[in-house]
């Protein structure tokens, strides 16, 4: 084992701390990472040109939205960009029809403290699918994806309809193309990687398939898989005591995810908390902590 270990306390600065981005920076060293805060300091039009790459063309085409103008065939705006000067975040939402609150695409990226980019939110859902109010509890409070409050009746309906924890509608199965677009954008920004915290067991499984590795939580994922095997502690805790702990739930990623949402990890002294994943731009980590288990 190595004897000398030098741990970096602070991340090294990789991007110049300038209040505004000039064209000279784009002409200069193309390998130098550019932060979102710097991009957000651009004038509106060049900012829009860059951020437009984050929205998959195919996805917009499915909803008859012009990828260049973000207008529908009635010339109505269907995509909103929020990337204010001074902010370190970019939020993009797209919706179908007139109700802006019913988004089918929502993406939020933010600079993090380690000179990287965090993927804070990604929602790609089918606006024509049934909506389940798992995001609001019976008192009308936001559930924050079921992490703060829960709407058990809606969650049960959502589970039976094939949704994963945290979803309000079925997805569009478009995560692959969305991640490709995110990477293309990050390559333009000369970023090395991006990071996220998986909301649920299903999310972690999807991100593994998309090439993410774990900064924290790989061992936890291995433990969960092991304990869901016949004879394991999580397997035994699937006792039918709640609708989310059905005995057959261990057989699918989604079934396990609902049991985890229901707090089943308590039996092994763990919580679904603190997992962090990384995607290296251009590389697939090949992680598979849930081998041979179907969605």
């Amino acid at each position, binding site marked *: *084992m*190595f*004897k*000398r*270990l*030098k*741990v*970096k306390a602070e*991340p090294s600065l*990789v991007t110049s701390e300038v209040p505004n981005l000039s064209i000279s920076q784009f002409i200069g060293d193309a390998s130098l*990472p550019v932060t979102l805060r710097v991009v957000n300091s651009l004038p509106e039009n060049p900012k829009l040109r860059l951020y437009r790459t984050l929205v998959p063309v195919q996805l917009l085409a499915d909803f008859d939205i012009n990828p260049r103008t973000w207008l529908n065939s009635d010339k109505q705006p269907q995509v909103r960009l929020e990337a204010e000067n001074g902010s370190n975040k970019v939020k993009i939402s797209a919706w179908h029809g007139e109700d802006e609150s019913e988004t089918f695409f929502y993406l939020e990226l933010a600079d993090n403290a*380690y*000179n*990287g980019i965090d993927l804070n939110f990604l929602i790609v859902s089918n606006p024509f699918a049934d909506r389940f109010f798992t995001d609001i509890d019976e008192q009308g409070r936001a559930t924050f994806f079921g992490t703060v409050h829960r709407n058990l009746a809606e969650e049960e309906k959502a589970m039976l309809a094939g949704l994963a924890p945290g979803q309000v509608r079925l997805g569009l199965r478009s995560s692959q193309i969305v991640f490709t677009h995110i990477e293309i954008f990050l390559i333009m920004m000369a*970023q*090395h*990687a991006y990071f996220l915290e998986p909301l649920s067991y299903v999310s972690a499984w999807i991100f593994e398939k998309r090439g993410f*590795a*774990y*900064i*924290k*939580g*790989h*061992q*936890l*994922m*291995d433990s969960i898989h092991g304990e869901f095997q016949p004879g394991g502690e999580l397997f035994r805790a699937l006792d039918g005591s709640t609708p989310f702990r059905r005995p057959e739930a261990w057989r699918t990623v989604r079934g396990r995810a609902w049991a985890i949402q229901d707090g089943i990890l308590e039996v092994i002294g763990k919580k679904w908390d*603190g*997992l*962090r994943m*990384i995607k*290296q*731009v251009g590389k697939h*980590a*090949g*992680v598979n*902590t849930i081998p041979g288990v179907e969605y």
Partner: protein
Amino acid sequence: MASRFQITRAAELESLPIFREFITECCRRYQIPEEIILDVKLAVDEACTNIIMHGYKGMDPGSIILSFRIEAGRILVEITDFGHCFEPVMTTIPDVEAPLEEREPGGLGLFLIYQTMDYIDYEASAAGNCLTFTKNFPKRS
């Protein structure tokens, strides 16, 4: 194109035999001499032990990505992790001739890697920590 193999496992001691077996299997595909396989396994073992014991110290362990590539006359091993970074610079060479009671504990891992590998490189970035080492091997006649 160079042949490349990769395995990713949790940063825990239980993964070490899997990494060793992975190196053995990769090397045997190319009929690498046994003494070279032993050297590469030793270097991988030491590097991964260091990541497990120090790199992910205080964290719920993340991943170690081990990749293996064969190029003309050399083996190239790349070990990536996402824990605390370290700089594998040999500041002093441990005195392996000294009596046991006079030696400082530890410190041999890096020494062994430097002794057995032909080239070592380390890079820490926002995309993780990457230790690369190569081992030359004689071409079969």
